[in-house]
């Protein structure tokens, strides 16, 4: 007999929402997609059965551009201050070390943000629900997750005829 929980396969993407202290993740089950909302000491579950999923909507958001601009600005300021201190004001090395560490930190943050890629918002539609999927926050991970989910949904429903009636 399979142990409880072992039947779930984790989908890419996880998001911590600090405002509500929740961690969101998605898991592929045998016949449903499980949305786990972890609130620290409790877990809430929402199930979306593959046979009921009608559509997934992705929307690109400008959040990553804004974050990159802010991080780039802070990293740039730190680096320029560091170079000014080193070459113009000829600061003591001891004074430059904290600034170098701070610059390095912000540059790393900026690079990590660049590597994480574009942000998006993802919604899942069934006949009676239109649920946001907060864990699919990065476009690259969202596409990977949707590709895995699509396989399961199509094996439950069959694949869609490309001809969609016009509205």
């Amino acid at each position, binding site marked *: 007999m399979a142990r409880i*929980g072992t039947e779930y396969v984790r989908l890419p993407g996880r998001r911590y929402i600090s405002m509500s202290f929740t961690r969101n993740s998605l898991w592929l089950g045998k016949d449903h997609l499980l949305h786990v909302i972890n609130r620290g000491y409790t*877990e809430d*579950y929402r199930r979306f059965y593959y046979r009921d999923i009608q559509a997934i909507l992705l929307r*690109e958001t400008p959040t990553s551009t804004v974050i990159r601009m802010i991080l780039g600005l802070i990293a740039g300021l730190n680096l320029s201050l560091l170079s000014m201190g080193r070459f113009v004001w000829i600061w003591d090395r001891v004074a430059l070390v904290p600034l170098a560490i701070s610059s390095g930190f912000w540059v790393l943050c900026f690079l990590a943000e660049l590597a994480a890629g574009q942000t998006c*918002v993802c919604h899942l539609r069934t006949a009676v629900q239109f649920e946001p999927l907060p864990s699919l926050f990065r476009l690259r991970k969202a596409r990977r997750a*949707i590709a895995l989910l699509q396989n399961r949904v199509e094996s439950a*429903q069959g694949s869609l005829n490309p001809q969609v*009636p016009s509205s």
Partner: protein
Amino acid sequence: MAESSTTNVLYCTKCNRELPSFVFRAEGFRPCPYCAAKIEGILFPAFLNENSQYRPGQALLIATDSSCFYHPQKKAEVACEYCGRFLCALCEVEMEGKRLCPPCIETGKLKGRIKSLENRRVLYDSIALSLSILPLLIFYLTFITAPISLYVAIRYWKAPTSILHRGKWRMLLAIIFASTQIIGWGVVAFFLISRI
């Protein structure tokens, strides 16, 4: 393929207006005609035939036919796999590969027999572990929290944890930390008493 119904529409997730089909029909992002948000839709067959699975239940033709327990005018199609009552197509609900009636589903949910109806679990292992670690920041609190942590870990050892497989390592760590703290307090108490 089924005809499109009036409910077969998608709305922009930014401006909430109805999206024309060319926006979600094509692959890749397309701008919403109203707010210019870049949107991509991935559609599945259920989007086009959402009413196809509706089954109203068949009316009784002969009075001697077996009828549904809840709808005497409807013909029985299956028996509930928990209570054995006859059910019509309207009452029959398929759950975890079993055909059940609504009251049995309600009972199954209350008694935790149907796993797929569980929508919340308390993570006692996380509670026990937090009780044994977090109070270390203000160490004298461990005098109270360590026994509580130990109690929670032992009392809820068999309680189901997350629906995702997590193992018992949090409980074990909580027991080890809490026991260490209790032993530590015991040593301190013994030392203080022996000095008096």
